[in-house]
């Protein structure tokens, strides 16, 4: 086996793939949130639609988005492969009594459930992308006016979706799973990279808390705001997607 393949498929190499893809996905979460908070701007969706037009039209962003899909798949499939490997390593006979405690400051319960949390997040992603991304790619989205230029009215599509309680509920569940996944994942990514040091670990742990709380709460705020604070839609547009109205 080539040294590089051997390195990447070794136990530490596989973890490194999880760590680097995970950190990349966290950086995406930050950017994605910054853009989507415009959904809460009180302008009838002009800011969001303009932003969405830029994001879907710019070739650089488009290239990065393909990289992002690859990272999501790599993170998910590598994670699944690790889960299977670890299950096998445990052996067929299970403990009748097993208590798992961890080192100080480590979220052991989240750490143990990373695969379950990850699967929940993947399920959420499928719903999320099926509802917006797939609909945007396959259905004719009504047009809107973005400061004199025509653009797809994705704002109304989101608005219509977030007026359905089960969509909001799915988002809340997804974000709770994300919070726990990030709490362990952020710290774990640095530990895998070998970045465990008395000077930096407290800061990394603090950042893990901030990321695990701020990102999911801010994301969940968008559907909650639309569901509770915005008026019912007067005319429901004809749109597809898996929750199509």
């Amino acid at each position, binding site marked *: *086996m080539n*040294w590089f393949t*051997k*390195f990447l498929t*070794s*136990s*530490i*190499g*596989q*973890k*490194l793939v999880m760590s680097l893809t995970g950190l990349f996905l966290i950086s995406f979460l930050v950017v994605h949130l910054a853009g989507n908070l415009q959904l809460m701007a009180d302008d009838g969706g002009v800011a969001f639609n303009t932003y969405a037009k830029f994001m879907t039209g710019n070739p650089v962003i488009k290239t990065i988005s393909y990289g992002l899909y690859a990272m999501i798949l790599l993170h998910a499939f590598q994670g699944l492969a*690790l889960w299977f*490997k*670890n299950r*096998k*390593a*445990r*052996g067929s*006979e*299970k*403990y*009748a*009594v*097993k*208590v*798992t*405690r*961890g*080192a100080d400051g*480590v979220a*052991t319960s989240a*750490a*143990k459930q*990373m695969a379950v949390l990850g699967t929940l997040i993947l399920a959420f992603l499928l719903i999320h992308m099926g509802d917006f991304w797939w609909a945007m790619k396959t259905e004719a989205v009504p047009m809107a006016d973005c400061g004199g230029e025509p653009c797809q009215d994705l704002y109304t599509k989101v608005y219509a979706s977030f007026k359905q309680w089960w969509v909001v509920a799915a988002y809340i569940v997804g974000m709770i799973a994300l919070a726990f996944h990030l709490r*362990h994942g952020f*710290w*774990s990514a640095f*530990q*895998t*990279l*070998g*970045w*465990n*040091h008395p000077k930096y670990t407290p800061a990394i742990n603090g950042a893990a808390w901030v990321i695990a709380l701020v990102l999911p709460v801010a994301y969940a705020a968008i559907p909650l705001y639309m569901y509770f604070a915005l008026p019912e839609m007067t005319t429901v547009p004809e749109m597809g997607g898996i929750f199509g109205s």
Partner: protein
Amino acid sequence: MIVGSSKSLQTDNCQLTTDNYSKMKLTLKIWRQKNAKSAGKFESHQVVAEEHMSFLEMLDVLNEQLISERKEPVAFEHDCREGICGTCSMVINGHPHGLMQGTTTCQLHMRHFKDGETIAIEPFRAQSFPLIKDLVVDRSAFDRIIQAGGYISVNTGQAPDGNAIPIEKDQALDAFNAAACIGCGACVAACPNSSAMLFTSAKVSHLAQTPQGEIEAQRRVLGMVNQMDEEGFGRCSNVTACEAECPKEISVTNIARMNREYLSASLTSDVMK
């Protein structure tokens, strides 16, 4: 610590009596399995122990009892019985080496249990630690990991002067803390993934931080991680149960150090395979 009445040590006639120590009646749920191929099951036994006994001494009492009843005694491993050899492997009430932290089974005393308690005793469970009998598992996978690089090469002859090579104090302490690993396998038993990262990283850290070990550091970490993977241990997911259960309290910072060492050795060493 001596628990019991002052009469327990009768120095006047040099007789040690334990009559007044508090006795405890325990129910043991012990895993019994004839060999790797046969199916195992839990067996319940009543045993009367004394609170000053070590856990292994309590098992000795049980085995005496079983032998007197002409039954097969429970097979369990033990050697030094002073907490330094790492032989006494078993999972007690869900914890490798029992509930007490930083303690091996042989140093775990019955005073930490309650009278009338039921204690579940199981072998270390991992695919890479195949069961031999009852509570005894084969941990030779650890030996093979050591053989793959957990050593330093030195010329034979007279023992070198211990202080001939100066080592910075903090680094020496760190290396020493890692060297405290007794290779008992509790980290693997505790890990939900049966990963051997804490053990392997303790050995890597111990040797990489000393001038004598630094010379072969790159080959060592590549060899040991490779062997660890070949033995079929799981992948670390940083649950840190290993650190919490380690009788020598080896820290997961060693795992981070091994990750660094492995990354750097993989990417920069001349080893092409």
